[in-house]
């Protein structure tokens, strides 16, 4: 139902999403698992609806996971109303939700400040995600990335390079 894509930078061995998985598989495995399970389940059953992402747009239409929990920041994955205690998921994965069927997954990290711009861990990932989102939007507009007939998937040259 959802086709996920990622981006590999010239100098890297792993894609951005691959780096995210590798780093947090050990450091933040449970938080990562909530995000990976979320990606897998919306991908298989529900589609990439905007309500399942949080808005992280700065210069382009970038999103992130997990979705925003409006009452509590950062998002709680386990919360006990009586004791008002819980475990927080402040791990962020930046993404570009193109539509309900196509999503680009980038990189992310544990967010330690109110705003991504003020957090030394995620600032770079947030800025890069916004930059990549803008470049991909341009490719979609100029045809370097093309849609299939029912706009459920994209096509591009396997050697397509994103330049900015």
């Amino acid at each position: 139902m959802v086709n996920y894509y990622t981006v590999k930078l010239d100098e890297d061995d792993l894609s951005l999403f691959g780096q995210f998985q590798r780093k947090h598989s050990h450091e933040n495995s449970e938080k990562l698992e909530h995000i990976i399970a979320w990606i897998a389940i919306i991908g298989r059953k529900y589609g990439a609806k905007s309500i399942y992402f949080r808005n992280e747009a700065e210069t382009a239409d970038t999103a992130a996971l997990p979705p925003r929990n409006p009452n509590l920041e950062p998002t709680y994955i386990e919360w006990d109303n009586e004791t008002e205690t819980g475990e927080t998921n402040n791990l962020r994965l930046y993404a570009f939700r193109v539509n309900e069927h196509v999503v680009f997954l980038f990189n992310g990290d544990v967010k330690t400040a109110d705003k991504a711009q003020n957090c030394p861990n995620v600032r770079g990932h947030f800025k890069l995600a916004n930059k990549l989102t803008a470049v991909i939007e341009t490719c979609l507009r100029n045809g370097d990335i093309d849609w299939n007939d029912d706009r459920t998937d994209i096509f591009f040259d396997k050697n397509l390079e994103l330049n900015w």
Partner: protein
Amino acid sequence: MEREGRMISDWLDQYGDPEIYAFVEKNLAIVDKVHTVLETKGWSKAQLAEAMGKSPSEVSKWLSGMHNLTLKSIIKMEAALGIDLIHCEPVKEYEYVFLGFLSNMEDLKTKSEEYTQTTEPEEFSIAM
């Protein structure tokens, strides 16, 4: 730029905890059903909150898909929306269904013995 391939499913196979997967899956199932019913009824989340006597921000939190919903809050939503969000079915080993009494067993036995199955086409006349 590349397709994600099996990075997600492979990761879940290697590191996944079935309990976390089930938590996210059930939570999303409830949240998606509530959103669908709200759309069908033409209700906003604020209207649902009002129907339950809750604050809109609390209901938004419930419907974030990342909240550990309590049975109480699920039942409140069920009552307000008039739907079932959780089905609990009793475990059955056997189910007995009464079909009725059989009489004149000898006649039935004769008929079953006389029955032959054929692949030949047969003509039937229909009384008009």
